[in-house]
């Protein structure tokens, strides 16, 4: 038993030291380890948080918190909708090629984001245009297939689209696991009563799948909130206000220790909402993890 609690202590110590350090002044942090605190509560200070949340300037995370929400919320809602449709389609609509399409979809799970990054960025920056040369002239007339998304002012849209695309395989897999396990009799009797797929989906499947949807929503929220790669490639050239918290904390960590004392507070602010979601909805989160890997 001591082994388990030893490990728990080992696992918690890093986050605990971060949390305690975030309440210590710059000089305190630089001159002594966190274990020397205590005894004198007057040493604790909120000035790090003040600077990180309302300091203005490059270290102020308040705008980036909004940006993080602006990225995470749509990038959670949109994939859920699409994936639920698709999961139902794969589970209960009978059509040719269903099997291989499903396996192909889920096997895309392993596709690393890096593989799509360069062409995606090219498309988002310039858009995709088609110049109908067949008119002989017309080289100045183009048909826009995909508009230029203008990453400088509307970067959020590009980030949503990317998150949505990359969420598809996992979300379909997870929701399909759940929706395909719903009792078959329910569907059969509904079909006999003349209900269409639309009605069944809307009146039966959606209400029954709320736990799975919640599980996936938590996943997707944590994943999009904590994402760094997509944000830093697509948004770092644009308006600094649009950068999410991860990028700002990474910048803070990368400025050669000038703001070392703000890092604990910054990291805690960055992690605050995921931790709230995690602790309040842990049950759903675990359920989602399990649906993705363990049968039964």
């Amino acid at each position, binding site marked *: 038993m001591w082994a388990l609690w030893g490990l728990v202590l080992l*696992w918690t110590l890093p986050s605990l030291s971060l949390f305690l350090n975030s309440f210590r002044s710059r000089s305190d942090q630089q001159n002594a380890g966190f274990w020397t605190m205590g005894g004198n509560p007057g040493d604790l200070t909120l000035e790090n948080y003040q600077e990180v949340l309302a300091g203005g300037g490059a270290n102020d995370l308040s705008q980036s918190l*909004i940006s993080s929400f602006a990225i995470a919320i749509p990038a959670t809602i949109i994939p859920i909708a699409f994936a639920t449709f698709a999961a139902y389609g794969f589970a209960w609509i009978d059509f040719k090629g269903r099997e291989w399409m499903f396996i192909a979809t889920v096997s895309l799970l392993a596709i*690393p984001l890096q593989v799509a990054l360069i062409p995606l960025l090219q498309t988002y920056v310039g858009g995709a245009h088609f110049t109908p040369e067949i008119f002989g002239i017309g080289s100045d007339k183009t048909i*826009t297939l995909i508009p230029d998304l203008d990453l400088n002012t509307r970067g959020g849209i590009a980030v949503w689209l990317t998150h949505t695309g990359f969420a598809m395989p996992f979300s379909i897999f997870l929701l399909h696991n759940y929706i395909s396990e719903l009792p078959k009799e329910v569907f059969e009797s509904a079909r006999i009563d003349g209900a269409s797929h639309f009605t069944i989906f809307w009146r039966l499947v959606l209400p029954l799948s709320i736990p799975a949807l919640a599980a996936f929503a938590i996943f997707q929220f944590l994943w999009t909130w904590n994402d760094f790669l997509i944000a830093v490639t697509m948004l770092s050239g644009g308006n600094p206000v649009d950068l999410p918290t991860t990028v700002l904390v990474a910048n803070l960590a990368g400025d050669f220790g000038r703001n070392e004392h703000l890092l604990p507070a910054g*990291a805690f602010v960055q*992690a605050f909402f995921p931790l709230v979601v995690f602790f309040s909805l842990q049950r759903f989160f675990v359920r989602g993890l399990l649906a993705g890997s363990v049968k039964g």
Partner: protein
Amino acid sequence: MKVQRDLPIIAAILGAVILPIVRATEPGMSLLSYFQWATFGAGVLGALGLVFTSGEEPFWTKVGSTIRVAVVSVIGAVALYYILTTSESFDRVASTMFVVLCAVSIIGGSWVISNVLLDLAQKNWALFSAASAAIAAAVGFSITRGNLVLQSLVVDPDPVLFSAGGGWGGRLEWPIFGALLWGVGVYAMRIVPVQAGRLLIGSALGLITGWLIAANQQPWQLPDINWVTTAIWTVVVAGLLGGIAAFRGRDPIPSVILGAGVGFAIGAWLMSPFLGAVGVGRWASIIPLALLGVRIGWRQTPTPRSLSVFDNRARAFVFLGPAMLFLFSALVVPAVATIILSFRNRDGDEFVGFDNYRTFFADEDSVDLSGWRDLFTSDLYSVGFLLIGAGLIIGLVANSRRNRVGLLEGSSGSIALLAGAVVMFAATVWSILGERITSGQFLSVPAFLVILVLLAILSLGAIALTGKVDAFDSFERTSASVGSVIAGLFLMSYAVLSVVRGTFFNNIWWVITVTTLSVTLGLAIAALAEKAGSTENVAKSFIFMPMAISFVGASVVWRLQYQPRFPATETQTSVMNSTWVELGELSFSGWPRILVLLVLAGLIGLLVKSAVGRARIGETFAGQMVGIVAFAFLFFKLADRSLGGFKEAADGTYGGPDVVRFLQDAPFNNVFMMIILIWIQTGFAMVIFSAAIKAVPQEFIEAANVDGATESQTFFRVIVPQILPTIGVVATTLIVLVTKVFDIVKVSTGGNFGTNVLANDMFEVSFSFFNRGLGSAIAVFILVSVLPVMFMNVRRMQQERVMNR
């Protein structure tokens, strides 16, 4: 309770009304910003309403949910206050919500409309046909209008095909007309019971549309039809489609009609010159469209059976379409584009074959074998060999004792492995003693590669030990034998990976370390927590928590643990360096050192006693062994006055503290970054293993107990085999994740100090040095590395789906 159900809606409406009014006094409010305010208010209040009414029971009946609601409300209120007091932030939030709402309504709206249309198809085929024809016509007419509906929003408001009417009215009148024409026309066609009548109406629709298009075209847009070519194309495509239909056992005539239309369009528009006369050119529009109309008219009113087939297909399209669209546009197409780009130069305008791949592997930063000589003198290498050898001998001896057979009887596999290990070790010792390695006489780089291959074979053989292979039948698999072999292999891989350097090997190192340790620790914690009783979930929560923290955040957390301060005489503030310096002081202290040595000796004694006790009853004592080795290591280091960080003065006494730059000192800085990922991912492994262990049928465990199995035997021989598939799932998931590791390296070291990994390299090359060709090549290489895992997953899934039938 009715009120409760409607609360979110009421709240949303209130929000939509109140917030614009509150803000109406502000100067410069445009209509759009009123919309944004309304959206915002509706969203916030509606969401709060939802929170309060979620679940079947009123929220106040459960304490837990009350707390949750309270927390959410407080956070919401603070956020609301904060947003409302900073106007600029508010505008961003409101406009974002507005865009989201638009996107969601468009998506949801078109999805619902498609479904309603398909519902309609079951009840009233004629109406369904008319409605879908109207929608298709509206889309088609908008496109012929010069893509204006799209372009006016984005690029260029000039009309391409039509000159009539600017503005929204001009843009809309044409599609609306098209929708009406085809909607009414197709409805009429569907209520005519005679096929000839339907054909007539269809061709008339096509004729009118074609004539209208031609009449609105400029002369330079009309083709000068080359009749011979066009006729050939018409016949060829018609024949092709008709042939396909006949081959599939369907009625060929509709396909022939459609094919003729398509063929005519290709011949007339693509294979003929432009600037034709109006009289000739208009046939290019009229004939294909008339044929299309005939094709539509040909279709019989469907029977109930064909209607249900149609319904399934159309629904599949509606339900899967959006997801597939995103999969293709965000994953499949870009991935293919990246593969193509990887064969092109840095700007993507010239084909360069495999040059990018060659550049990557020829680069010293990617693959650096220059330090290979150090392998043979490294402690890790020797200890690894010794452990493998010891493990093999233990296994063989244990087997010969238990089964009373000769030591080397019938165990070709393990003997070959043992011989291989002994020969390689002897060769190493011999060449070190003869200083052949350091002088470069004994081995060249190719010979070193041969050794690497041999090592790989040895490893595979040793891994096979743990499986069911006949050649290893006489190898007793216990924690001492298999455990030593695996530990030896692990050390050996570290020995190799700490001397051969570069991005490529760093990635391999990450995969080996993080996957192995996360799985092992996760399994161990899951097993330990199983016995923790009521505190199980608390303990698991703490281990699991890092999962919620971003990789960036976790890197910051651990940086705090590693950070050294210079000069080393300063007070160290990080846990790791402080401990390290303290240990250095301890090494040179007087009686505290003696005291610690005594304590360590006592601990070792206790562990030895416990290990012997467990060995007697046949229990595993791997944990005790780990403890003994660790404490003995500390003991001897301390006894030798070489534990911890210190500088030695000239006379061999304590010359002050010394620190470790955990994230800068190569090559083991890599390992200290891997620890960050292990810290995060162990929780994931633990949760899944924990559930899998709970799912093992209780009868199996009871049966093992009845047979007198010890606790560890039950675990390793009953539970582990049962959850083996789950271990596979977790391991593959981790391998895919680790192969892509980026954030931690980027934030901790930026890929400097010999810590670069593929994903970071790809990022730097593509977005800092703008070499898209090389960047794509590295990305493709990452993809190729995870392909085997992908295939394994697909195979497993197919088996599962077959089993579920």
